């Protein structure tokens, strides 16, 4: 892409990739909900993508990129469970604090936005094809 002006397909396409990253982080978070580890450092933490607008001066259009993926949300919770094979010397385990409701809402939002971008791309494609057929 570099210094080429953005096309409408890149605008929607990059937004779709960004939403896909968001969907993947949600999947990881949900998959790791309730997992335990033997220390606070090793416990799973919720991950979230950071979106950043990529504005293109030449075409006046703006798309979105994932700037980074950060850990966010609550700290892992300590639980006394001496019977657990992962328990440390004092009998504690750390449980990942994934907010499942929030993750599910996030997943829905991501899939809706993804669908919207697909729709935009389809409309833009058919209009461009119609323009190519001009005069025929």
């Amino acid at each position, binding site marked *: 892409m570099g210094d080429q002006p953005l096309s409408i397909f890149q605008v929607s396409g990059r937004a779709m990739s960004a939403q896909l990253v968001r969907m993947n982080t949600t999947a990881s978070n949900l998959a790791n909900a309730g997992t335990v580890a033997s220390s606070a450092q090793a416990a799973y933490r919720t991950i979230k993508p950071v979106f950043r607008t990529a504005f293109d001066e030449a075409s006046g259009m*703006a798309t979105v990129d994932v700037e980074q993926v950060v850990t966010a949300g609550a700290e892992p919770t300590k639980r006394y469970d001496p019977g657990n094979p992962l328990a440390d010397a004092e009998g504690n385990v750390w449980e990942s604090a994934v907010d499942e409701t929030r993750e599910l809402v996030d997943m829905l939002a991501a899939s809706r936005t993804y669908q919207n971008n697909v729709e935009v791309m389809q409309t833009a494609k058919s*209009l461009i094809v119609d323009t190519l057929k*001009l005069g025929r």
Partner: protein
Amino acid sequence: MSDDGLFGVHGAALAVRSQRMGMLASNIANASTPGYKAKDIDFRAALAGIEAQGGAGDAGIDAATLYRVPLQPSQDGNTVELATEQTAFAENAVAYQTTLAFLNGRISTITRALRGE
């Protein structure tokens, strides 16, 4: 501009419609980016701007590009409201096709005249 040339106002109209489609696509792409401010092109003003300059495109469109005023601002500073954007996008797509139909009609008129049918 509207009185001379083969296609009248429709060439400029198609350019504005195409720019607006890109702008609305950008808004929809940034629907979940915190702090993004949605923009839109005032079609009538953009067309008037292009006509006033005698056909040179970009400055007239830039002058008619405005930030959208959200009905209900969201907490993360994003002003994209999907319902508004989707409506505008659909309306713009239909208008684009209308302009294409006008252009096609003009082209077939001219072709018929050239062939002498």
